[in-house]
């Protein structure tokens, strides 16, 4: 049986408990995508036209360093949200996202969702409430990585 995109969106952890009307609005901007191992979901500098909700598989968030090559700073897994740059102008990715293994994801068209959020600010607010916790979690994690907690300190 082929699951409807609406059903898939509703079942995803990120949208848990969301009003059915909003689920329908989001689903209208969403589609299923799959990425083979090693394939990139997006690259630094590209326009952030989509964000992804992972259904299966893992994604490496990479920063490119001329001396060290690609450095993974985070991995994302089933149930996680991949991509926040679509939220803030100029809507460009600031890192690469690479599928570590076979990845299945719900891809949400960012311009479509932004348009619907402008038209119905309740949807926009609902989305903001869902995006803030991972955003804050990531900020906290980045701070801990930045101070290098495992290093010896003077």
């Amino acid at each position, binding site marked *: 049986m082929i699951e409807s995109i609406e059903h898939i969106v509703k079942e995803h952890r990120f949208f848990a408990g969301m009003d059915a009307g909003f689920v329908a609005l989001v689903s209208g901007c969403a589609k299923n995508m799959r990425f083979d191992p090693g394939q990139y979901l997006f690259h630094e500098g590209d326009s952030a036209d989509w964000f992804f909700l992972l259904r299966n598989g893992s994604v490496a968030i990479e920063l490119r360093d001329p001396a060290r090559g690609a*450095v993974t700073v985070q991995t994302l897994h089933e149930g996680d949200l991949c991509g926040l740059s679509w939220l803030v102008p100029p809507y460009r990715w600031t890192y690469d996202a690479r599928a570590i293994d076979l990845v299945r994801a719900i891809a949400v068209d960012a311009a479509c969702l932004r348009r619907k959020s402008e038209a119905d600010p309740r949807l926009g607010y609902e989305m903001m409430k869902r995006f803030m916790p991972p955003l804050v979690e990531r900020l906290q994690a980045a701070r801990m990585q930045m101070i290098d*907690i495992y290093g010896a300190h003077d």
Partner: protein
Amino acid sequence: MTDAFSAASIAAPMIPRVARVVKRKREIEDVVTLEIEGGAFDFAPGQFNMLTAFGVGEAAISVSGDPADSARLIHTIRAVGAVSRALTELHVGEPIGLRGPFGRGWPMAEAEGRDVIVVAGGLGLAPLRPALYRLFAEREKYGRILLLFGARSPADILFRDELEAWRGRLDIEVEATVDHARGDWRGNVGVVTTLLSRAQFDAANALAMLCGPEIMMRFVANALLERGVAQERVYLSMERNMKCAIGFCGHCQFGPVFICRDGPVFPYSQLRGLIAKKEI
């Protein structure tokens, strides 16, 4: 004067006995495991010894070996300063000073019948390893066992062979994460709290043992509390500079407690008001 306070009884635990290094293994950069000929040495998981590098000084080092194997006395040491570096540079056959074991260790009896969440950061896996050996040896006494481990990079993963062997067991869950990695690392990247958000356990009946950098333990403890684990059942192993290790000099004082005598393992309920204070 009562016997308990006689000069001799205070001095006895202060005098190191001279032992010898019988084995030395470099684990990762700056970290060495020493096996010391200790005779029959009994200790509880989480306890520590004071080790002397003669001519340099003394440092508190947790026992990192198997509590069931009292013939092998094992410590894992990271070179961070003069004493710890001198200890890591000792070779087989050289003398080392030893006194202990000291302190109150991990709450093994209280963990029985519960899901046990062990969270280690960096070298924090060393003081937890004796508890893990005990948990695995008496596997049937516990509910789920989760080991969550965080390190700076793949090259900094302590006891990697053992972690991989434990990961192969079906009756425990082992997850490791690093702060950053190159492309050839296929594991998790991210801080250790991210492992916790995906972990499955019965929060109402769980007990946690945490050891690692203090800031890591604070964040993990708070995340556990948010998941519903009781603060009385979240245990942390604390580090402070030590001198006497027997509750006399006050060097290791942390608010109202002495880490050497009342700890080093404490329930978070006892530390929560103190651990984020700058002046302590």
